[in-house]
């Protein structure tokens, strides 16, 4: 079963640089949500903050009702065992083959026998379409395979919340479609909650129940998919249409020109400015 994640007033900065501020929304239990946003808007930082790898400056995160930003490292490990995370490039352990990578969480956290572990690992490899690849090392396979193996490892402890950082970047359109189908299938069969960071517009348009978008250091929107797809917000429309014409420019820094370094625009100004551009 999936868990709900409530994010309230979350703000994160590195030194003087604010990555995003005052982000509030709820990931509904058992549903698939997608987080969009131009490169460098802090999507990866957001996922890492959700699992406690970064501590936010302000705000709270409740996972299944438990506040995690104030937990100690030891208590965090207990919460993290209910989560599966797929990092941007799979983040497999380079010193182990794929089989041992996927078996790693089982060997660390369960008392299963090697025979039971083999059954589970082979099942997960099968699930991501990599049966027979267990002997390969992460350095010997393509980026797409690393991501799928990383997903298999994330799934091995039957997580209730699965976070994926750009699972489809670097994959061809057919494989991206298969991966989307796999995620939908996992969601149906396990009921886990998903949060997926992606750049793929097709994925965003078909897969999720909800869509959120980070832009200019704030959460522009988080709402049911149909609502976002029908939105007339210029940022959302430009991003979903992959249009060069609109408020989003070539470089993230340029988008912020005119509002001083590192500050977030007030809501009215932000809206007004983009209305003119659109």
């Amino acid at each position, binding site marked *: 079963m999936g868990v709900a994640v409530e994010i309230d007033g979350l703000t994160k900065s590195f030194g003087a640089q604010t990555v995003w501020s005052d982000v509030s929304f709820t990931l509904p239990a058992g549903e698939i949500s997608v987080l969009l946003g131009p490169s460098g808007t802090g999507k990866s930082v957001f996922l890492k903050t959700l699992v406690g790898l970064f501590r936010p400056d302000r705000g709270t995160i409740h996972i299944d009702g438990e506040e995690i930003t104030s937990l100690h490292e030891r208590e965090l490990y207990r919460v*993290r065992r209910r989560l599966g995370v797929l*990092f941007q*490039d799979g*983040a497999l*352990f380079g010193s182990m083959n794929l089989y041992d990578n996927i078996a*790693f969480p089982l060997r*660390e956290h369960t008392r299963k026998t090697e025979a039971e572990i083999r059954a589970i690992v082979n099942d997960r490899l099968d699930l991501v379409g990599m049966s027979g690849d267990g002997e390969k090392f992460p350095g010997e396979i393509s980026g797409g395979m690393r991501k799928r193996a990383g997903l298999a490892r994330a799934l091995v402890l039957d997580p209730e919340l699965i976070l994926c950082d750009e699972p489809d970047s670097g994959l061809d359109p057919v494989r991206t479609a298969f991966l989307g189908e796999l995620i939908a299938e996992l969601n149906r069969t396990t009921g886990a909650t998903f949060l997926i960071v992606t750049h793929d517009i097709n994925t965003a348009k078909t897969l999720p129940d909800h869509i959120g978008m980070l832009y200019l250091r704030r959460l522009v929107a988080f709402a049911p998919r149909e609502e976002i797809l029908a939105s007339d917000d210029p940022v959302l429309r430009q991003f979903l249409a992959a249009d060069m014409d609109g408020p989003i420019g070539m470089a993230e820094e340029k988008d912020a020109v005119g509002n001083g370094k590192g500050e977030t625009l007030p809501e009215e100004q932000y809206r007004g400015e983009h209305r003119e551009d659109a």
Partner: protein
Amino acid sequence: MRVFRATGEFVAFGLDTVRAAFRRPFQLGEAIQQAWFLVSVSILPTALVAIPFGAVVALQLGSLTKQLGAQSFSGAASVIAVVREAGPIVTALLIAGAGGAAMCADLGARKIREELDAMRVLGIDPVQRLVVPRVIASAVVAVLLNGVVSAVGIAGGYVFTVVLQDGTPGSYFASFAALGQVADLVSAESRALVFGILAALIGCYLGMNAKGGPKGVGQAVNASVVISFMLLFAVNFVMVAIYFQLVPQKGS
């Protein structure tokens, strides 16, 4: 300001490592593998540096003792110089330049591939799993390297005095016993131990904090070598000064 913060973070990292060292299960396999790796990258360069270094010390002291009219002490003086100072210095150079740098590169690569984040998410503390065994391996190997350098120095001094300069073995050992003491070796070995621990801690700390892709790892490795050298030489001075305060010297 940045230096102070980094120093504070490094001290905190050291304390974390000490704490994690007492947490079970101890990663014996990883420690042995790391120790073996360290020996394999450092033993040959250590020997190749120790022999000419010992020879230079012997030549310098041979000439100096002649100027002072104390030729009979030349062999012993060079051995003591090697055991007291050359051993720990060669150990520091090798353990930081080869060992610490390799650890930094290894952990840096894992950091930018997000392996360390993945480990934390999977409920494993990278400090306990990766840093502790490396620090222990480095400490053990540093003591060993220092022993190797001392042995090479003593053997070299013997060859130099007895075989090349026609001294007698008896007078060589007698002059040696007149000046040196076991505490010299203990002091040198304890410095080597500290160097091994510090070089590994610095390498691991900078590797785990590398950022900015492969270039960032390169910079971290560079920094780890430079910082380790500076720190180890400073620590060496302090520990020697303390040694001379605490341990009375023969003949003085």
